[in-house]
């Protein structure tokens, strides 16, 4: 131990490293939490900052250079370079706030456990590296903090799973005791709305409990069962989300569905699944254990899956939003579909039944309503009750809400939207509203994320659509800035109001309100938490 003190600058380097570790931990632990503790996500995010944020890469390079200089230099006074490296590392990624403003670090027990391991790992490696590399050691450890955070996540993953077992076991006991029928819903998007609609349609006929908003994995659903599944519950509506293939199969063993439904197969979560075929396979796992399946057959892939389920002897309730389709539930979105306005839609529940009026705001919305009606029909809710209850479906917060700003401009808040199809649709609606009002169209968006291999292309397409619609684009932050601006430039005419890059949403909001005047329409499409560049 004493020997360490003879390394030049050893004590100040260690002390400085301890201080620098605080903001570094705050940043990477927050990223880990925001990215659902998935090992690898922290390094991915660090790399995204290096690529997108112009100062992060160079500062990291200088810090790395200083570390190398300190480690390799024959002159002991050059060890002071390690101190420089530590200070620079504490500032990385350049521009990522230490404390999140949009989403703060939540001190859950899980985070505290991770933080303890994080600290032990960094401290142990830091001391070890101090012996091997001298003062450059602690600097190197801090520089590699993002991968080390992922290492901590990888170590904790099996431990967390084991620790959470008692909640899962308790949920299994409760489920066996209460014995509700389980309705499982999955889909690339729209599953939360659909779940809420199903709960609403069923609750007049059955004692129904729905899993809360984002409790859609093993632990979340277990918690929903433990907290909400009261004795006497007849139907449990479970939203099942996925991070990868096999996950829904596992969820279905814990929460075996009687009725399983898929809303849409789309491109959400492509980052982890790489292709829509993988997504299709992963989502259709939901039907494996169900005796009744509800499928929208306007998608030919799901139509094929419906046929497969029929040959497996399952009861299949087919759903369509194309009038005239041979399906059990057919929703006719009416002429106005696709507009932001409510169409004169109608729905036929059960073959040969009378059409009932229903309010839908868009085609995407229509699929959710139709699937929900199909589930209620499958569960045995009388058709008249379904039709009556379709009249007052609960709204979903933050999804395409239209409000009037004090300035007079219309504001469409679609900030929770993260899928390419929905974004284009929202843009279409906003553009027609703007045309109707004779005011400018202003779009504020950071683009869409988690789209893996197609992310650049989809954001380009979205930018191009904004350009084609003659909208003013505020591209927020850096993650998708390039793709959005390039797309915009590819279609915008000389009359187009232009595309402007802004650093934060707050700045964009101020300028958007100015630009929209009193007749304009402002579309807020998606929102990125501030751990993204």
């Amino acid at each position: 131990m004493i020997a360490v003190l003879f390394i030049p600058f050893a004590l100040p380097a260690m002390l400085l490293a301890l201080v620098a570790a605080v903001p570094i931990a705050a940043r990477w632990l927050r990223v880990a939490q925001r990215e659902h503790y998935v090992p690898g996500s922290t390094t991915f995010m660090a790399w995204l900052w290096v690529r997108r944020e112009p100062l992060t890469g160079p500062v990291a390079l200088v810090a790395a250079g200083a570390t190398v200089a300190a480690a390799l230099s024959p002159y002991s006074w050059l060890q002071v370079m390690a101190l420089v490296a530590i200070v620079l590392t504490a500032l990385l990624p350049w521009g990522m706030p230490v404390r999140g403003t949009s989403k703060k670090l939540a001190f859950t027990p899980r985070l505290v456990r991770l933080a303890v391991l994080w600290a032990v790992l960094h401290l142990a490696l830091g001391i070890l590296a101090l012996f091997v590399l001298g003062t450059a050691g602690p600097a190197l450890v801090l520089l590699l903090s993002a991968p080390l955070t992922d290492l901590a996540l990888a170590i904790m993953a099996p431990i967390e799973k084991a620790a959470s077992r008692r909640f899962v076991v308790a949920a299994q006991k409760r489920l066996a005791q209460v014995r509700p029928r389980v309705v499982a819903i999955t889909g690339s998007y729209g599953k939360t709305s659909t779940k809420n609609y199903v709960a609403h349609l069923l609750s007049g006929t059955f004692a129904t409990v729905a899993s809360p908003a984002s409790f859609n994995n093993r632990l979340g659903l277990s918690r929903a069962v433990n907290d909400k599944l009261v004795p006497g519950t007849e139907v449990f509506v479970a939203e099942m989300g996925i991070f990868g293939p096999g996950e829904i199969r596992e969820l279905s063993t814990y929460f075996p569905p009687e009725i399983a439904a898929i809303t849409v197969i789309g491109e959400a979560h492509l980052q982890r699944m790489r292709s829509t075929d993988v997504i299709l396979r992963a989502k259709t796992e939901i039907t494996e254990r169900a005796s009744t399946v509800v499928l929208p057959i306007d998608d030919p892939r799901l139509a094929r899956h419906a046929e497969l389920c029929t040959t497996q002897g399952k009861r299949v309730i087919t759903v369509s939003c194309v009038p005239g389709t041979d399906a059990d539930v057919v929703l006719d979105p009416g002429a106005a579909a696709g507009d932001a306005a409510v169409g004169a839609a109608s729905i036929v529940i059960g073959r040969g039944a009378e059409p009932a009026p229903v309010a839908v705001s868009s085609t995407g919305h229509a699929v959710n309503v139709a699937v929900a009606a199909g589930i209620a029909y499958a569960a045995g809710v009388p058709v008249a009750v379904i039709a009556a209850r379709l009249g007052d479906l609960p709204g979903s917060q933050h999804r395409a809400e239209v409000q009037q700003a004090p300035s007079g401009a219309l504001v469409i808040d679609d900030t929770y939207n993260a899928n390419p199809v929905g974004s284009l649709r929202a843009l279409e609606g906003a553009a027609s509203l703007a045309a109707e009002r004779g005011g400018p169209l202003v779009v504020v968006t950071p683009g869409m994320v988690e789209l893996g291999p197609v992310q650049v292309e989809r954001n380009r397409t979205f930018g191009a659509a904004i350009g084609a619609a003659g909208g003013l684009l505020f591209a927020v932050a850096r993650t998708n800035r390039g793709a959005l601006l390039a797309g915009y430039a590819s279609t915008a005419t000389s009359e187009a109001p232009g595309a402007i890059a802004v650093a934060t949403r707050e700045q964009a909001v101020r300028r958007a309100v100015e630009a929209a005047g009193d007749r304009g329409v402002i579309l807020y499409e998606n929102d990125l938490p501030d751990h993204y560049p």
Partner: protein
Amino acid sequence: MASTAPWAVVFGGPSPEHEISILTGLQAERVLTAAGHDVVPIYWAPTGDWFRVPAATEAKDYLEGAPSGSTPLEVRVSGEPGIYRRKTFGAERVEIEAALLCLHGGAGEGGGAAAVFSLLGIPATGSTLFAGAVGMDKLAFGGLMQAAGIPSLPREAVSTIVEPTFAGPYIVKPRFGGSSIGIEIADGVDAARALAATSIHLRTGAVVEPYRPELVDLNIAFRTFPSLEITPLEKPLRGDSGSALYSYAEKYLAGGAGTDAGLTSAPREFPAQVPDAVAARARELAERVAEVTRLTGIVRVDLLLDEATGELFVNEVNSIPGALSLYLWVPLQPAATVLLDALTEARDRRVVFPQAGFGGGAALRAAGGIAGKLVGLDGPRA
């Protein structure tokens, strides 16, 4: 103060009226605490778990289940019965003088909680299992009124076998369940049957009454300790929503958000502006209901008045009424006195039924071997 252990206030419980029960419980807790009493607030979660919750919680603390800082309780009916607080090693008994039950609807008001607390050996307000059960069964209560000769509207079970003896339109009500939840109007017997078959609240049993929208709701409360006392009449006011029924929403949610929510601030005319004869008749009916139901504690009786004829009908009884009907007692007694008297009644004037003795063992001795009792039970011979 004479009492040696704190009072318990028990609220929540497995019932559709769970949330309103929380409001009643928190209100009662505050009233007793403000009067200088020691109170143990106990929350019976919808999942069935019991918790001791911190003092002075707010309604919003219960949005996600038991509030933070709650301790799980164990409820033992055998082996030193009582309520226990779980500790790291073993459990510690929670000493309770008597429990104020604020459990509206469901098993709580229907006598279930009374049975549980009698098994626990903890005196509790509200009535006995038997009195509570009749109060919660609208068909049984209607029959009781009829048998006692107390005026009430005809009330019959929705049956798939026989039709009601009176013509529609009908009010269809859940047979079990104490509030306005699940009440519907049906034009004829077929509609009533369809409702009874599909509605979640009616499937477990439904009754019909003649639908008479002209009748006016009147409420009155009585308590039985230190002696029978009856409140002035209250006329709950229907909203302008155009609804024909005094709905759950009007009854409980009309007060809006915050501390105003709940029965205490629902729109009402109090005391009700009715002829003296009606007021006197209402008191008389309340007294008769008290006698024939053997309900104790603080009880609200819901009446219907035909303003044209001055005729009064007993509609139903609430053995654990919303807000414990404290708002009806304002002209007569402070809330704390009403609650304290109910607790004292529970502690000092217990209703004890003849308990299981062994009958001196006569039946057991005379029984012989159990094998002899199995003879001939094998079902019909082939």
